[in-house]
């Protein structure tokens, strides 16, 4: 029965970057679908808010303050999860974000800014995969979801670290998929479009005027896609990227909102 295959009852899911935004939204939605949550992020107070939201669904939420750019902390996150719950069914590598150097001209980017951007957005996901895979192999079962970005597939002007790291996310996803397909571990990638978390971003994207559907995404809309990819309903989907972007990546060859005149 298809709806039963989308349930996550009895599953344990680690979500990084779970203190806010898309990470929190996915944590809550995975919990609504039945999973217990291990919420990781740097800021304890934000994790506590996520835990409150998760617990309202009736599921457990374990908070593990983690800096995902430090591999020892990511290893500890996996170990703590196994100690507490005895298994890891789902890992959502969500933590990441702007590197603080977007818009900076290339000659001005420091080595440290480059490493920081790659570490935050790509190394963190590599550390996550590496930390959970022994347990998932032992279980002969697992679901890994990496969060990328439209910049994984398209370049951005003066957007170096973020675009390069997110592009790496896709290749990490594919290599994970092929390396662990035979262990019944599926690794897939969500490619979110524009999901603004502040007024500045909302204004930058003009409220979604240039997105084909004419609006931006809402955090809550990402949750069901994470549920699908974390569930048995996606057991034969592996190494795949799924864009949730209001049609953005389907086009782009011409500006949104205009089209060529009809031919005679």
């Amino acid at each position, binding site marked *: *029965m*298809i*709806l039963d*295959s*989308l*349930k*996550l*009852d*009895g599953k344990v899911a680690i979500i990084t970057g779970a203190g806010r935004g898309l990470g929190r939204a996915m944590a809550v*939605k995975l919990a*609504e*679908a*039945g999973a217990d949550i291990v919420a990781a992020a740097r800021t304890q107070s934000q994790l506590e808010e996520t835990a409150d939201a998760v617990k309202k669904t*009736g599921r457990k939420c374990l908070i593990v303050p983690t800096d995902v750019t430090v591999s020892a902390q990511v290893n500890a996150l996996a170990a703590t999860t196994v100690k507490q719950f005895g298994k890891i069914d789902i890992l959502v590598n969500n933590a990441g974000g702007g590197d603080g150097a977007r818009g900076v001209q290339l000659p001005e980017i420091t080595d440290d800014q480059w490493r920081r951007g790659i570490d935050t957005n790509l190394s963190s996901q590599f550390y996550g995969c590496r930390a959970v895979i022994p347990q998932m192999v032992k279980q002969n079962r697992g679901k890994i979801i990496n969060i990328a970005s439209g910049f994984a597939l398209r370049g951005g002007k003066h957007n170096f670290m973020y675009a390069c790291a997110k592009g790496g996310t896709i290749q990490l*996803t*594919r*290599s994970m*998929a*092929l390396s662990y*397909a*035979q262990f019944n571990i*599926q690794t897939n990638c969500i490619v979110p*479009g524009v999901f603004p978390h502040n007024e500045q971003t909302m204004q930058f994207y003009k409220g979604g005027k240039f997105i*084909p*559907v*004419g609006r931006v*995404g*809402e955090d809550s*809309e990402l*949750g*069901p*896609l994470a*549920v*699908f990819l974390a*569930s*048995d*309903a*996606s*057991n*034969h*989907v*592996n*190494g*795949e990227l*799924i*864009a*949730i*972007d*209001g*049609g953005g*990546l*389907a*086009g782009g060859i011409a500006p*949104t909102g205009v*089209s060529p005149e009809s031919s005679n």
Partner: protein
Amino acid sequence: MASSNASKDFSLEGKSVLVVGAEHSVGRAAAITLAEAGAKIVLASQEPGTDKQLKEVARLVNAAGTKAVIRVQDAAMRADISATADLAARELGGLHILVNALDTPAYGPAEADDDTAFDKIMENNLKTVWMSCQEGARVMLRQGGGAIVNITSVLAERGVANAALYCAAKAAVLNLTRALALEWARKGIRVNAIEAGWLDDESSPANKGDEFSKTLLKYLPDNRLVKPEELGGALLYLVSPAAGFVTGESIAVDGGLRARV
């Protein structure tokens, strides 16, 4: 333990679906999946003379607890496709979801294909999908929106020898999907695709036990073919309200094959 409410996001209770190509394995599996999620379904054939197959699918849809209407038609006939879209709206009170499971595999050496082969392969694999999208959208635009899923193949993005025209048609369906998604993005119709990997069904060239089948199995990341019902999860996600911000996208259900190629 409290029961989860995953079914809330993915339920198709009260939705009306048209599955075109329901006599074949993929369409049959699609119809059953969507029926299990609560949808009422018009089962339309790709070809005439398929009453018996459609009746069997209708029985399975009914067994899942919903209504099925049978429509034997030729999906290459504009008048048939048009009337089917209207029938769905009339019989089921609307047309919310259209699934085009239209497929006629065609393998053979390129140098042997004449112009008739070109027309036939393009008609069966592309023109039918195009007309079905047009006629489905005609009804959906009138009622303010809907969701369309075109089921194509991983061959849409990669070539294979001995299938030039088939590959071309499958690629065309994928980009047709993207273009229609953009065209109807602000009119409430989402258009997405599923790319099926090598299938285990009656028309597959991959389960024949021949050299190709044997070599392919070893090559696949998880060493097995895709069962038609395994497309169901991606299909349900794409047509459900949960995917309201997803359009012009395709999901490969191929066990990781495309990650390699």
